[in-house]
């Protein structure tokens, strides 16, 4: 069970994560507008100027359609292989070369008007082995399936400290693939991907128990 202090720090970090979408600094100048009092402090305008000048793509990190919500909608439990949300030809065999042309490095696809998410495991060549299309929404029989909640964001132990990796790294060892770039899910996109050595700061959380001496 989480103790009180941990709860507080988590809450702080959640708030922090919500506003802390960093973007490149753009130069701004305050200007006087007609009808506004002399001596008004214009520094508060900065945020609005910045908002207007930053393309939303860079702010949300996506084309606006790929969020944690859609991310989990395509999965049955945290970590399950997602279904294919777009049309694929019936004859298509799911071989990598064709999937990889979009999902290898990402990029904008005009037909779907979306940025392709990048696969973290391009070495697996038989894509249809795990990823299948959806051809109907109807079920054969209703299901009683339940799964656990997806991991919450903002699990840092202290305000601002790097959060641990909340998911298994199996098939998802490549952090850059999912956490950077315009195809990344908005809420988990980071701006410091260029640092490269992700696990220098973010370590997998493999247990929630605390250390206890047992001798």
């Amino acid at each position, binding site marked *: 069970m989480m103790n009180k202090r941990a709860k507080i720090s988590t809450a702080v970090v*959640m708030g922090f*994560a919500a506003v802390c979408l960093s973007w490149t600094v753009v130069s701004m100048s305050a200007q006087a507008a007609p009808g506004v009092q002399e001596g008004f402090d214009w520094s508060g305008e900065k945020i609005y100027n910045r908002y207007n000048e930053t*393309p*939303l*793509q860079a*702010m*949300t990190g*996506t084309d*606006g*359609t*790929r*969020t*944690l*919500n*859609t991310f*989990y*909608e395509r999965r*049955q*439990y*945290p*970590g*399950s*292989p997602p*279904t294919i949300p777009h049309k694929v030809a*019936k*004859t298509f*065999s799911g*071989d990598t070369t064709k999937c990889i042309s979009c999902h290898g490095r990402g990029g904008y696809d005009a037909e779907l008007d979306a940025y392709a998410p990048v696969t973290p495991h391009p*070495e*697996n*060549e*038989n894509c*249809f*082995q*795990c*990823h*299948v299309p959806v*051809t109907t*929404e*109807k*079920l*054969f*029989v*209703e*299901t*009683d*399936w*339940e*799964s*656990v*909640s*997806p991991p*919450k*964001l*903002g699990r840092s132990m202290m305000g601002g400290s790097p959060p641990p990796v909340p998911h*298994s790294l*199996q*098939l998802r060892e490549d952090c850059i693939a999912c956490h950077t770039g315009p195809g990344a899910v908005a*809420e988990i996109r980071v701006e410091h991907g260029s640092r490269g050595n992700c696990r220098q700061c973010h370590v997998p959380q493999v247990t*929630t128990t605390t250390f206890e001496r047992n001798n």
Partner: protein
Amino acid sequence: MKLNRRSFIKSAAAGSAIAAAGSIFPGISFANWKEQQDPSGQITWKKAPCRFCGTGCGVLVGVSGDRAVAVKGDPNCSVNKGLCCVKGFHVVQALYGKDRLRTAQVRRGGKMVEVPISEALDIIAAKMKETIKQTGKDSVAMYGSGQWTIPDGYVASKLFKGCIGTNNVEANARLCMASAVTGFMTSFGIDEPMGCYEDIEHADVFVTWGNNMAEMHPVLFSRMLASRKRRKNVQIIDLATRSTRSSQASDRSILFKPNTDLAVANAICYEIIRNDWVDWDFVKKHTTFHKGKTNIGYGTEDHFKFKDAPEDISFEEYKEFLSDYTPEKVEKISGVSALEIKYLASLYGDPSKKCTSFWCMGMNQHVRGTWINNLVYNIHLLTGKISTPGNSPFSLTGQPSACGTVREVGTLTHKLPHGVVMKEEHRKMAAEIWDVPLANIDPKPTYHTVEMFRALDRGDIRFIWIQVTNPMITMPNLNRYRNGALKDDRFIVVSDVYPTPTTDVADVILPAAMWVEQEGMFGNSERRTQHFDRIVPGPGETMSDTWQIIEVARRLGYEKQFPWGEDEYIGKIWEEYRRFHDSPKHNMAPYTVLKKRSGVQWPFVDGKETRWRFNSKYDPACKPGSDFDFYGKKDGKAWIWARPYEPAAESPDEEYDFWLNTGRVIEHWHTGTMTRRVPVLHRAVPESYVEIHPEDAMNLGVTNGEMVKIISRRGEVTMKASINGRGNPPRGMVFVPFFDETYKINEVTLDAFCPISKQPDYKKCAVRLEKA
């Protein structure tokens, strides 16, 4: 207002920002699964083999509270090293269909009524006693499955063969693996592959014989692709009767006409000998030549009997036999060009290339299934490409425990856990371990599966207990066998997890525990035994199939043979069963080792697994000083067989002018009782269809999705056409996936079988098509 691109993006983003709040503020739920309120917030991971195919991938089942909630590939399992296929990744969802059978049901006044399970077990035991008294012990039967756990099969065999004294024990693996077994027995005298999956990382050439591995053994297929990518010089040749995803991924796709793989294999051997690519050292030391009966029939009539009469022949006689199979002659029979045959032979014949052949249902569900198994072994024996890493004739298995439960435990009419009922020394061993009088075990086999259902139809069998399988979808020529099951005076008990067309004909339904709701073991294609614990409780009154049999056995008065307690029975059964295999040729790992590891290969000798059998470098059962020792045969030599090409039981003619071929798709397991209840899998392939060549469709006047009536001499099915779909049959053939109970394609298929293995051929019969 015209939205320019940027404002479009902005408004979309605003919408998604609200949705995104769900992930940040707890309590707002999103995504399409019901979230479990788990107080600990922890998932614990427990190992198990995947429930579905014979690949036998290891999975880690994520458990929260008393529910399975997630899956990972087991990185400790050498089969799949952490990667599953889409079925494996969603296997836990198969437990949670809303219509799980939770209580026992009994037919009263034509209606099924729920009763306590103990009452249902009483009724079963009483009915068995009564039937044995009235019509004899051979009128009660057990029909099980390659999806039975090893203990399930073991107690079934012990009860029926040891205690009741009838050999009426069969399993659906007869429909899937019997030709593989008789292939091994006739060529090597001992069952199951000599190699292991590690062959995939060593082989330079893969030939898949009628085996769409991309869909049916996907994890092995991707291992093959990964090996090709890493090592560059690897080739995959797909040899099949229709084009599939495997053909698309292969370096070369070669199509042959149905049943002519026999001729192609012989032509490859002809070429190997003509070019003197024979490994003479190997052939002289380790092989002998033989022939058997020809024109052996198809078993479509009741009481069909066949016994082969093997004769020794010389190499010269074998060579003479092959002269009918020159590439040019075989081109005419098979449609494979002489050039392609020579090319295939040159790959097998090149001493610098390691060759692995893979096959499964294409060669096994074949009216000459035993023969084609023999013939592919011939290729590997002539070139000495066997039992060494990468050189492997590899017979893959379909079901998760067809090897473990049916082939190793011997749940077939002629088999015992060690050996066969016909041999006294094997009966003696069984009687001793089972603690039953020797006279109990009947030396005469009774019915193989098709004949068992014929006997049910005729009335020779009055009581049948069906576990973990769905024969009212899977029996070929289904109409006859369903009508038989529905006759008065037939008593059908079905143990299953969901309602199926087979529970529809039942007089008693027992709700079974499924997969990790019970402890058990499976045995996969590469001689790997895989233990799993009871990881989550089953719903309602569900009970493991093993325990159901034990309960009935005790009610029949066999407490002495079934003495175990509910908390220990799996371990005790395993240790008893292991005594049957106590030799370096087949030693099984102890229970404690199985519990710890993600699968252990047998023979397990002095704490070590045997990866390549018959090769003294790896296999301690080989005679000391030998290089290879095929110890299944008395003289240590493998058999090369002269087996001719013979046509299918029913070929297209003027009236019925198409071949019908049936099979699976990656998303669905067998009859779909489990996979259709997994949302992702059902949503991907919600119904079956008939694949038809575009030109045939045009002649028929149907377009994609229009209805086609498929008619044979036995029945008809009307379903949607799939043109240029996932697979593409050649002109003159249609293909139907059999998983969909709405379209019972087996009402159309033919119950012809291989006379040696008695395994039916689901891949070939004649039909005609009509636009519906």
